[in-house]
């Protein structure tokens, strides 16, 4: 499983990861050096603080949610501490690869990306976004400048638009449907440098 504390990335590992995630060698090597630079304590895995220490992430309103999503999707929980090894790190990042429209699995690609976005919203991981969870996210995004009233109204309105079965919360399917018109493949793609 690659949870070794060895800091050298072996060739076979690169090949395995490359096959799994469709990154090429150069990208994986580059990501590995980034992984090492984030892993300041040289433990061989990342913890939440390691990621939260990224300076730009601190000013990102969704910073901690992003970190949370990383760990939820692929981390192991050992001794009540979430850990992320390199392979898991790359696997999460694979969600953000540009979708190759010629490949027939484009439907999967879109759903996977949306899954990441959904998990970031779903704080208590019960598979639904409730109004309260939504309000928390909205609050962190738009900040304290709008009144709580406006916040409530906006949250209500947004939930109402997406909530097809009117149960007061948004399931993953409803989320996907709400994002139909958005060009997810394009918006949620990052061109990884070689």
């Amino acid at each position: 499983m690659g949870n070794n504390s060895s800091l050298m990335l072996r060739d076979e590992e690169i090949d395995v990861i490359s096959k799994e995630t469709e990154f090429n060698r150069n990208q994986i090597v580059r990501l590995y050096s980034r992984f090492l630079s984030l892993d300041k304590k040289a433990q061989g895995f990342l913890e939440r603080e390691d990621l939260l220490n990224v300076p730009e992430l601190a000013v990102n309103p969704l910073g901690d949610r992003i970190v949370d999503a990383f760990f939820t999707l692929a981390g192991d929980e050992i001794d009540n501490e979430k850990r992320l090894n390199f392979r898991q790190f790359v696997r999460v990042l694979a969600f953000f690869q540009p979708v190759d429209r010629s490949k027939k699995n484009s439907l999967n690609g879109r759903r996977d990306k949306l899954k990441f976005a959904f998990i970031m919203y779903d704080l208590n991981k019960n598979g639904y976004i409730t109004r309260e969870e939504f309000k928390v996210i909205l609050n962190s995004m738009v900040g304290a400048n709008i009144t709580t009233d406006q916040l409530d109204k906006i949250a209500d309105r947004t939930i109402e638009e997406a909530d097809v079965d009117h149960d007061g919360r948004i399931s993953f399917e409803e989320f996907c449907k709400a994002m139909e018109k958005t060009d997810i493949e394009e918006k949620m793609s990052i061109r990884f440098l070689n």
Partner: protein
Amino acid sequence: LLLLLVSFTFIHCDSTRSPRPSGQIDTPAFFDRAFVMRFGRSVERVMRKADNSNGSETPTRVHVAELKWNSTQDILIISLWLLLACIAKLIFNRAENLTKIFPESSLLIALGLGIGMLLENSRVDKSRFTLDSHMFFLYLLPPIIFDAGYFMPNRAFFKNWDSILLFSVVGTLFNALAIGFSLYGLQQLFSFTRSFTTFEILLFSSLISAVDPVAVIAVFEEININDFIFVNVFGEALFNDGVTVVLYELFKQFMVLDEVLPIDFAAGTAAFFLVAIGGLIVGLLAAMFTAILTKYSDHAVILAPLFIFLVPYMGYLIAETLSLSPIIAIAVCGMVMKQYVKGNVSATAANSVKYFTKMLSSSSETVIFMFLGLSTVSTFQSGWDPLFIIATIIFCIVFRTIGVILQCLFLNKCRGKKFSMVDQFILCYGGLRGAIAFGLAHSIPSSVSAKDMFLTSTIAVIFFTVFLQGSTIRPLVNLLKVERKEISEPTMTETIYGKYLDYMISGVEDIIGQKGHASLVHDFERLNHKVINPILMREHAKTEHFDATKIVRAYAKIILRDAMETTTEGTIGRRTTMRKEDGDTSSIARKRGGRCSCETDQSDDSVDHNPRCPLSEANLEQLYAIFSKMFDEKLDQIKELKKIEESDDESDEICDDYMKQARRGSIMPVADDVAAARRETRLRQVRPSPLVHPIEEERARVNSRSKSTINPPTKFIHQ
């Protein structure tokens, strides 16, 4: 009659130019234009009298009235042309069969052509009504470019900055050189009616290779193409002015030099950077200046729109004075200025800016195209060389296609969003030439012997692109099923999730240590908020954190739209409850059915609302101010409501009496204070108040149309 009046002014002006001895009037010349004069001989005589009375004859009697043509003729002519042009545009808007085939721009050119031929036969001095470059570049062009820059989709623009830069710089350069050298090479094989040197033909090719923003706007706006393609073609058209101007001036100077040294090429390259970047800087400075001025103009609110127009125009003029690119300056100014100015001026001022800009640019565009047609007649006297023209057109098309394909090949390797074959085809096809090329061709120095040939070829190419390409682009776009711009109503979901995804991608990019598009935008947003906004925007408009204003604005617009929809439609759909999991106060969700009855068929272009319809843009924004206050009040009242349950069955029917409806729908008794509040708001609706007047009007209109009545208080509360 209008035409005749116009021709009279020309004739009279013509006659006032040359001094005539009193009493001797050039009768034969006047008689030649008999067919024009048929309707107004008496007017002519009066004019002559007026002329004589200003001349050497001493007046013998007191005049009851005089004709003062001399003092008003210039502005009268201009106003007449403008009026004529706009009336023509109005007529074209009505003639739908015609506009379905030809773009409006081509119809205006045709009209100009017609008028030109009419006036041609009256032997009026031709130089009076050609498109004066001076007037074109200083008065007619700036409003169009400013309008384009101000309403540019900034987001799409910055996402595609790399392709736009490549197309406008490299593409134009490639086109200019390729066309120039091919034509020169062709000259060695066949000789044209006029001969030209290398630099002369390069001068010509540099002006003919530029895609024209005015023509692009005119044609593309009608077909409502998606933002991606539009922003690429239009961005290229806008910013290739930098290259065109530099090349033009460069070759003009090269022409007079005896020999061209490498230092001259170096100077040319330096000039390009200076022109482009200088224009950019002037635009940015003008934008900042406008923002600061509007920030402090809260006590003299009426000045704000004035600043918004004046400062960019001055930026244009200053850039022109310093021989930088004025088009880039004013376009950049418009683009940058928008977000700061929107936060500083009131909604009414912003509205007036929007409408006035559109009006100015629309009328400018109309006049330009008409004058283009008009000028054709006068310039098409000599220099007509079919071979040259055909060669030019072919080379233009071929090299543009090659250029686009090569550049897209290169770009597709480096970009996320790739150019599909269809995209590339539209890019090639959208390379329209227009009035700027004509203006530049006109200002070719007369020392160039081939000037008239160049001029006619320019006109021919413009006609070809506008008529042929302009009219066929719409069916082609339909055929190729190019993605159109979605004129769907914005949903709250899209706005919020859009922002959400941006932050998310920015965060992931930070994690992997890459500075991609999203994180750059995010960085700029932070910089904007910390440093720039406090300087350029007013205190109360500043946001605490990141840009909340967009979300709040989107929300307000959506709510308003909903409210207006329910005012105009006769039905309110099923009302359902939404309960929170913990079960306290709930809000009511409602499915809305029906559409506004004045929507025209949506198969083609934009949905056009009747100007009186509340859903039209103008009224929507007007009513926003009214509604936002009311909603805040109403929502306080919602919080006191108990659960109201579903009413299925004949819920399409709306009760006349609000209380009856509430009773029908609710199981729980309605709280007393809430009932009182409802009654109060209902009374407030009924009581005539100036604020509510448009709603009353609308309700009256709808009531007369539909059987069931609408209950505004219900709607407001349940919002």
